[in-house]
């Protein structure tokens, strides 16, 4: 084994991965990793590696909440004898690591960046965050990353990629942030054997092959936009009950509401997740609602992801195919199937363009 250098691929035993997590915690970094809690697999700040669940599979919520929290205070105010006093929320500059997220989740953060990086709160947390993803070793029935340009070993938005081998892991830095995270460890880690990385990719290829859902080409965006007035949307979304699970489990949904909470004595301005599936989201003060029906609201979510956003942001869909919205929807709304269904009904479709 020569002197370890940047760019080198390493091979880790099972225990080594856990001790790496413990070492990161020892360096006072905050580590968000999958844990099992109350029957839920969720990402949470962990205190020790033994709590981490390294098994494959998605977490109930995406990692976006660690960059774009469910609720956050933008500023607080206090009435001091008639003088309003404003205060910024306390600064939190602890470096953090999203450890063991799926590649689709990492790609979701890149989509979020295009919307939220202009926000100083988000941008600061993003700067402090390093993403360590684990390549998927199995696909759930709702997964469709390959349909939107992703992969079970996708590298978009990933700083360090871990891929499972039969007896451990291969680990590779994919960005300067990833390099910085691995640099202090390289001395103690074994260099991967020739073919380890390829074996891991091959495994990911098999997982990709097991995803049965067809591709949703970026070129569909314009035609989808033209489907806006198509009555098919009423039919597709008739069963949508108007909760916001889809938006809240989504790794790339970025909408929020801002509300002042408190009294004339003290309080705060809060930013909270919001969803286009809610009636109130577009309700005007006048009483008019441009998205008056639930199907219209449901259509908004699909078209925003697959038409409006790609047409404005360089062609890529604002969906990474994680399948969470399909899995958690109370009435089984399937965004992938909806897009396919709408396109199969478009008269302008090219021959052979759409097949289930």
């Amino acid at each position, binding site marked *: 084994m020569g002197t370890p250098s940047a760019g080198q691929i390493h091979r880790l035993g099972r225990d080594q991965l856990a001790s790496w997590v413990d070492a990161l915690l020892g360096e006072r970094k905050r580590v968000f990793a999958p844990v099992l809690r109350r029957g839920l697999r969720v990402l949470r700040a962990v205190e020790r590696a033994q709590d981490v669940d390294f098994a494959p599979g998605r977490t109930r919520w995406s990692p976006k909440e660690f960059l774009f929290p469910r609720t956050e205070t933008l500023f607080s105010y206090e009435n001091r004898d008639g003088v309003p006093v404003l205060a910024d929320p306390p600064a939190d500059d602890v470096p953090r690591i999203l450890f063991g997220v799926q590649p689709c989740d990492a790609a979701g953060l890149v989509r979020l960046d295009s919307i939220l990086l202009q926000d100083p709160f988000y941008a600061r947390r993003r700067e402090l965050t390093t993403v360590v993803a684990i390549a998927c070793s199995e696909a759930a*029935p709702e997964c469709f990353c390959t349909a939107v340009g992703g992969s079970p070993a996708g590298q978009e938005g990933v700083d360090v990629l871990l891929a499972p081998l039969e007896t451990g892991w291969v680990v590779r830095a994919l960005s300067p942030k990833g390099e910085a995270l691995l640099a202090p460890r390289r001395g103690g880690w074994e260099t991967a054997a020739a073919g380890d990385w390829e074996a891991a990719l091959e495994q990911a290829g098999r997982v990709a092959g097991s995803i049965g859902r067809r591709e949703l080409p970026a070129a569909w965006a314009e035609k989808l936009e033209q489907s806006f007035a198509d009555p098919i949307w009423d039919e597709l979304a008739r069963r949508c009950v108007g*909760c*916001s699970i889809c938006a809240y489990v989504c790794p790339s949904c970025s909408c929020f509401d801002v509300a002042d909470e408190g*009294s004339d004595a003290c309080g705060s301005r809060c930013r*909270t997740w919001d969803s286009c599936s809610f009636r109130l989201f577009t309700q005007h003060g006048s009483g008019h609602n441009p998205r008056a029906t639930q199907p219209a609201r449901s259509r908004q979510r699909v078209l925003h992801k697959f038409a409006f956003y790609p047409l404005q942001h360089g062609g890529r869909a604002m969906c990474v195919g994680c399948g969470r919205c399909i899995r958690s929807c*109370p*009435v*089984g709304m399937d965004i992938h199937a909806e897009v396919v269904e709408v396109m199969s009904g478009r008269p302008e479709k090219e021959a052979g363009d759409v097949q289930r």
Partner: protein
Amino acid sequence: MTEPTLQARTETAAPTWKPQIAAIVCNWCTYAGADMAGTTRREYPASVRLLRVPCSGRVNPLFILKAFEQGADGVLVSGCHPGDCHYVQGNYFARRRFAAFRSLLNFLGLDPRRVHFSWISASEGIKWARVVGDVTRAVTEAGPLTDWGRASSPAQVTLPEPPAPRPQPAAAELEAVTGHVRELAASLLREGKVSFVLGWAPGPSPGQTIPAFIQRPEDAATLVFDTHSHADLAAFLAGPRKVSGKVAVLVKACDARAATTLLAEGQLVREDVVLVGVSCPGMWRDDRLAYRCHSCDGEVGALCDFTVSAAGVQPGALPTGAKRATGPDPRDLQNAHLESLPAAQRWAFWQEQFADCVRCYACRAVCPMCYCGSCISEQHRPQWVPTSIDGRGNTAWNLVRAYHLSGRCVGCDECERVCPANIRLDLINRRLALELEQRFDYHAGTDPEGAPPLATFRPDDPQEFIY
């Protein structure tokens, strides 16, 4: 309630700590009684802040919730003695609401020393002084309320699971029911008796079914009935999700109770809907029988126009003969365990559950009883439920939801099934349903003409909890 003193919550019980108690009092009796206490120089602790309302019947229990949320350590609600209401009946209605809300708070584990109710007339200045003294003592013993919206320590509760899983029903039986459902749906559509049939069809995930709106007779073949036909389709009969036109809707026993309650609440015109009862062998969640199905015999009740069983389609609401063996309700066993724990531990348990709530409102969206065009959680003036997805906002939402369903919930447990955070809403609903059954002999979903328990009263309703 906006005074800085009330907002500035005392975090630790300093020796100088004095409780903040919100007293919500009726203008015609207790308010005057408090005045009487003052004019007669009667001494009592200066710990209460009076909020005057025109009648105890005006007291929405959410006032109590709001008081705690904004920093009160205790709440006293006081009105006129039964029979003395200035508006004849206000305090009778109030008494029922307080019973339900108090039971909810107790079940969630809020220290019972913090919530008090009394009847104090305008001439009872002495009683006012005594009650305020008693309430102040109780709240002082309970100490500062520091865990509203959060668990002060890990709850560490493991709920008991029901014994051995039951065998799944025979596939052939379910297939026979499915076949008859399809035939009936096709014929209703073909004969133009309905414009839609609402049933269940396979969903995108394995073993999942989803609500299906069948419009053409040939599409009836996509309908299925199996042990995962969970959705309570009565949710599409009223409110913002209401399907227009005449519909036939497939109902299991629990869904039929929901339709019955909608009728009782005037949300459904009986002639607009064809109710098709389906003989139900119980629904499965993962590899276990759904909790609600343990104590249910699967019979669809007296309301249906058709009853479908493996034997065929029968017109009318007939017993299907497919009676299942029933056993104790696991939800009751789990609730009994929860109620055997100290209140503080129960509070921590529920706060941990609520902490995971993301306010997606899926519980509301699938509930057949949540038919309001505009939910109180969407109202901003005043804002009853903070929009923030945090302990305070989540506690408010979950209390509001549970209370609004008390005496109305039919126990279909859809809210619990769809909750992405696995919050045990079914346990809360069940506990409140039993409370109202025991107190007012009201069984939600059994009588399409019965008045909902909180919309009526009896002059001799129990009031053991009122000073």
